[in-house]
């Protein structure tokens, strides 16, 4: 983090170019990203991203917590898709423990992950359009996002920091009206996507601002570590949900939208198509929802039901043990990656056989995707920088951690 310095440390030519400081309070940087731009008239000559303003040392904090206490920290990494972060961490620890998760928990996890993806994409679409001057789309997107947040509140008790997925399954059985609410949302949502598309997809101003802007080739994307919709917009047909399935994604049928143009418009089309695919997955999960428990049968890892604690001695003992001294995880290391709305979200968890992780590292997609921003903007117009930032959909919380 170079916020102590007012100019970039490298030399520049003062008679021809000027240094422009963008952020960290600029509304179009989607958080606290600071960009040092060297501009020659309207052209960007050089760009230095400056990050770290939100660094809270979450990785260090994880090492001082029990395994189950890390789950709420994962919410706060990427505050736009908390459930997917919970999921990745839980899957990593479950892999270390070699835990088997019941089918109903897996299906509900898939359903909520896809709702999270929709909520995250809606924030992206709304703010991205707002950056480019289209105010209406923002209001439409936040209307549906609000409904998803109400569903989250209904199921997890929290709108944003849900911590609903726990090691070994779900925190609680979903409430009775949960699946009905999700179904209601899934029925109305496709027409709402038509409304967003009606505002933007063939809007001449939108197309003028996005087509051919901030181009990224597939080779550059792979070399710079870009993942997710940003890479699929450049023609790389790879989605972890389909290609390396986890938590039961192999049981669902969906398309992976890919565009080959590699510009802002292509990334927009990929994400909007993903909205439709995600709601399709939610519907499939509702239709084929298995019956059964929502927690694994592992009394030393999963907290017992409150009812059992009042009647069974062992349940009370296990509860006391888990809360006071955690549970030991066999030594080893795993890397678990899932497809987050922004790309490959990976958790590298190292256990030394105790109740606290030796190391939790989060491979956040925004952190890697940000490296491609320079490639997209050099030699282009200053006004297109805003479009480029919006199109890679960064969340500074997960960049700085």
């Amino acid at each position: 983090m170079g916020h102590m310095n007012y100019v970039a440390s490298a030399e520049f030519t003062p008679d021809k170019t000027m240094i422009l400081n963008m952020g960290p309070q600029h509304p179009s940087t989607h958080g606290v990203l600071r960009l040092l731009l060297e501009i020659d008239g309207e052209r960007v000559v050089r760009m230095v991203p400056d990050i770290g303003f939100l660094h809270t040392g979450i990785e260090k904090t994880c090492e001082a917590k029990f395994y189950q206490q890390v789950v709420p920290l994962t919410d706060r990494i990427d505050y736009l898709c908390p459930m997917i972060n919970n999921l990745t961490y839980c899957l990593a620890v479950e892999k270390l423990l070699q835990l088997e998760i019941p089918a109903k928990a897996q299906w509900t996890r898939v359903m909520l992950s896809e709702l999270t993806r929709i909520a995250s994409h809606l924030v992206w679409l709304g703010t991205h359009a707002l950056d480019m001057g289209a105010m209406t789309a923002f209001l439409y997107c936040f209307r549906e996002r609000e409904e998803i947040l109400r569903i989250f509140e209904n199921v997890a008790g929290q709108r944003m920091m849900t911590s609903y997925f726990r090691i070994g399954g779900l925190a609680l059985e979903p409430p009775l009206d949960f699946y009905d609410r999700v179904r209601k949302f899934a029925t109305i949502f496709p027409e709402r996507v038509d409304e967003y598309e009606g505002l933007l997809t063939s809007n001449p101003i939108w197309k003028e601002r996005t087509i051919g802007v901030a181009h990224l080739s597939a080779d550059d994307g792979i070399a710079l570590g870009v993942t997710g919709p940003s890479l699929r917009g450049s023609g790389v047909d790879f989605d972890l949900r389909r290609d390396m399935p986890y938590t039961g994604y192999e049981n669902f049928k969906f398309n992976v939208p890919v565009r080959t143009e590699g510009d802002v418009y292509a990334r927009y089309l990929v994400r909007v198509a993903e909205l439709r695919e995600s709601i399709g997955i939610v519907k499939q999960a509702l239709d084929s929802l298995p019956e059964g428990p929502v927690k694994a049968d592992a009394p030393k890892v999963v907290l017992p039901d409150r009812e059992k604690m009042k009647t069974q001695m062992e349940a009370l003992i296990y509860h006391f043990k888990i809360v006071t001294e955690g549970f030991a995880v066999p030594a080893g290391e795993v890397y678990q990656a899932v497809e987050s709305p922004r790309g490959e979200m990976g958790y590298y968890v190292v256990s030394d056989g105790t109740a606290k992780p030796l190391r939790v590292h989060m491979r956040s997609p925004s952190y890697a995707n940000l490296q491609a921003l320079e490639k997209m903007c050099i030699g282009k117009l200053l006004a297109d920088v805003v479009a480029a930032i919006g199109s890679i959909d960064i969340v500074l919380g997960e960049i700085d951690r």
Partner: protein
Amino acid sequence: MAATSHPQVITDVEALRAYPALEALLAWKPEAVQSAKLDRGELSVYIDRSYIREACSVIKAKFNFLADVTCADFHPTEPRFHLAYHLLSHELKQRVRLKVAVAGDDPVVESVFPVWPSANFFERELYDLLGIRFLGHPNLRRILMPEDWEGHPLRKDYPVEGYR
């Protein structure tokens, strides 16, 4: 424990030879491969520190994507730092983890930036938080902490609440 079984670990290099990542490395330079381990379905290959950049450029033909570079601090045991390079093959849909063990008094590794430019931020983060230096990195400066910060917070001998 009811649902947990002890994970099966294979450490015999010959038994793991069929894995494309290990096959490519052994065909290139067997002495670069220190050991290999299949644990919970994930393949880890320990590479000699002096060969890591070459190993990456050899394996890049199949494992085209560098997903992550990270490191765990095993202080006070030596070698203290265990770097992990998580590689992904879009074609084979497989992952492999290349590992390099580095001693605490000499935490220097060759940068893989010339092979994958994406290593830029990952290596800067490791330099910032764990104090590992990467030879050949074009811009090895702090990235998350302030530039005048002292110490490397993710090291195990750095207290969680910091120095006050």
